C-alpha cells in the first residue's frame, strides 16, 4: 500500500515537472563578444584591422518581430520591439512562451516599417530612450560608439548610428536561424571583433545618417550574428 502511494506520488510529481517544462519560457540570450569573450564597456580591445586598441562607450540596437517557424508554418510575432543595450543586462534576455514546437526562428534586426512610419510610441520605443532621430523622422536602429587613440576625430571617437527605412537603403533585415530541437534556450552571439575586421574604421569613423553607407554597414553588422547552444 505504502509502495503504491509512493509510486503514484512520484508519477504525479514527474508529470508536474514535465508540465512545468512544457510551460517554461523559451529564451534567446544576446551576447556581445570580442573574439568570443563578453564585451564590457570602457574596456580596451585590440583590433588587427585598426592596428590599435579601441573602447566601447555604447552598444545598443533593436531586434523586433520575433516569429517561430515549424515546417514553413510561421507564428504571429511572439515578441515585438526590444532594445538591446549592453549597459542594461536585463535587456539581453528575450523570453517568450509557446505551446507548439518550432524548428527555427526569424526576427528583424531593426524595426518593422509599420513602427518606423507610425507616430510616437512608448516602452523601448519611447524617444526618451535616445534612439529616435530628431532631425529626420525614424528610429536609429543601432548605435555603436566608442573611441580609439588612432582616430583623428574629436576625442578620438567613432560613432555609428545605423538607420533608415526607405528603399533601397532600408537597414532593417530579416534574419533566420535554426532552433535546436527541444532546446529552451539559445544564444544569439554577435562578435564585434569580426565586425570591426570587416569595416575600415580609420577611414570611416563616423556614420550618422541613412543611405548606402549605413545599409552596407548594417549588412556587415548582421553578418556576424550567430545562433549557438549555451
Amino acid at each position, binding site marked *: 500500500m505504502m509502495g503504491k502511494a509512493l509510486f503514484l506520488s512520484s508519477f504525479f510529481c514527474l508529470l508536474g515537472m514535465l508540465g512545468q517544462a512544457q510551460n517554461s519560457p523559451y529564451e534567446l540570450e544576446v551576447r556581445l563578444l570580442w573574439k568570443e569573450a563578453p564585451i564590457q564597456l570602457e574596456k580596451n580591445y585590440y583590433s588587427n584591422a585598426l592596428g590599435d586598441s579601441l573602447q566601447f562607450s555604447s552598444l545598443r540596437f533593436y531586434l523586433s518581430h520575433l516569429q517561430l517557424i515549424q515546417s514553413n508554418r510561421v507564428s504571429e510575432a511572439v515578441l515585438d520591439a526590444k532594445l538591446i543595450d549592453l549597459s542594461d543586462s536585463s535587456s539581453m534576455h528575450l523570453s517568450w512562451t509557446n505551446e507548439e514546437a518550432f524548428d527555427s526562428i526569424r526576427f528583424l534586426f531593426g524595426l518593422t516599417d509599420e513602427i518606423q512610419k507610425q507616430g510616437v510610441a*512608448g516602452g523601448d520605443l519611447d524617444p526618451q530612450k535616445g534612439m529616435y532621430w530628431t532631425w529626420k523622422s525614424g528610429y536609429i536602429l543601432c548605435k555603436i560608439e566608442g573611441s580609439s587613440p588612432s582616430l583623428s576625430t574629436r576625442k578620438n571617437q567613432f560613432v555609428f548610428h545605423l538607420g533608415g527605412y526607405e528603399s533601397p537603403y532600408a537597414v532593417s533585415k530579416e534574419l533566420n536561424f535554426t532552433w535546436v530541437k527541444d532546446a529552451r534556450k539559445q544564444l544569439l552571439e554577435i562578435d564585434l571583433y569580426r565586425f570591426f575586421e570587416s569595416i575600415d574604421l580609420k577611414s570611416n569613423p563616423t556614420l550618422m545618417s541613412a543611405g548606402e553607407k549605413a545599409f552596407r554597414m548594417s549588412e556587415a553588422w548582421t553578418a556576424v550574428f550567430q545562433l549557438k547552444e549555451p
Partner: protein
Amino acid sequence: MKKTLFVLLLFFSVGFSFLHIASLQPTHFPAPQYALPTLSDSSKIALGRLLFYDAALSRDSSISCSSCHSPYNAFAHTDHDLSHGIDDQIGLRNAPALFNLAWQSVFMWDGAIHHIEVQAAAPISHPKEMGSSIAEMVSRLSTSPFYRNEFYAAFGDSLISGEKSLLALSAFQLSLVSSQSKYDKVLQGLDAYTPMEAKGFELFQQHCRSCHLDPLFSTYAFASNQLPVDTSLMDMGRMAITEAKKDSLLFKIPSLRNLSYSYPYMHDGRFVKLRQVLDHYSGRSLQSPEGQKRILPSFTSNEKTEIIAFLLCLDDLEFVQNKAHQFPKKLLPGRREATRMSSKN
C-alpha cells in the same frame, strides 16, 4: 432659484470653454490627414499647451516652443528672418507658422518629420533650438508635482514619459485650426469681398492656386520657389532629407493664411513685405510639383495691389486672438512655485 442659475451658468461656461475643441473640423475643409482632437482630448491639449509655453523644456530654461512660434504671429515669429534659439544661436530657416497642421502629412520646410506626434522632438533636441533631449525633458518634468498632476489628468497616469509628452504637444498643435478669415466667411455667405478683393481673388485663382490650393491655401507639396541659394546658408531644402538631386532646392509650399501676422516670408525669411514676394514671382518661370512648367505674367502694380488685398482676406484675427491658444495662466509667475523644477545640469 439661485442654485439653478448657478448650475446653468456653470454648464454654459464649461460648455463654452470646450466649444473651440468641439468644432475643430471646419465644414468647408477637406478631411484631415491626422485625427483632430475631440472633447475627450481636452486635458491632453491643456497639458500640451503648458509644455508648449514652458521654457523649462530647453537646456537652460530660456527657450520655449512659443519663443519661435508666438500665437500673435499665427505661431510663427517676426523678430528674425531665421529662427533664434538657445545661447542666441541663429538657425537655418524661418520658423514656419503653426496652424491647420492636421491637414499636412509631413512637417518642416524640408519634410524631415514624417508624423505630427514626433515633430516636437526635433526642436527640443536641436542644439541650435532648445538644446535639450527628450530624456532630459522627461527627467525634469518628472521632478515636478505640478506636471505629475497634469499628466495624470491627461493620461490617467502620473508617470511621465517621452511618448506622453509628445502626444500632448501634438494634441495642442493639432487643435490650432485657422478657419475664420474673411475668405472663410465669404465662402459661407457671411461676408462679401470689396471689388478690389474680388479682382485679387480672380487673379489668385488664375495664377497662384495650383500651389496655394484653397481652402488651406497650400497643397503642402514640395516645390522650387526659384530663389537663388543664400550662400551663407547653403540650404538645399528637401534634398538634405532624400539625398535625391531632383529634390534640390525644393521646399514645402507654405499656406497663405495669416500672412499679416507671420512675416517675414519664404524659407529663409528674405522678404519682409508681400509686395516683395509678388515682385519676385511676377513674370517668373515656375514648375508645379507635378512637373508642369509655366510662366507667371508680369503683374502690374495695380494687379499686385489687388492680389495683396485678397491675401489680406486670409488673415484670421479670431485665430491669433484665441485665448485658448495663448500662454496658460497656470505658468504665470504667481503660480511658478507649483511648476518649479530641478535640473540635473
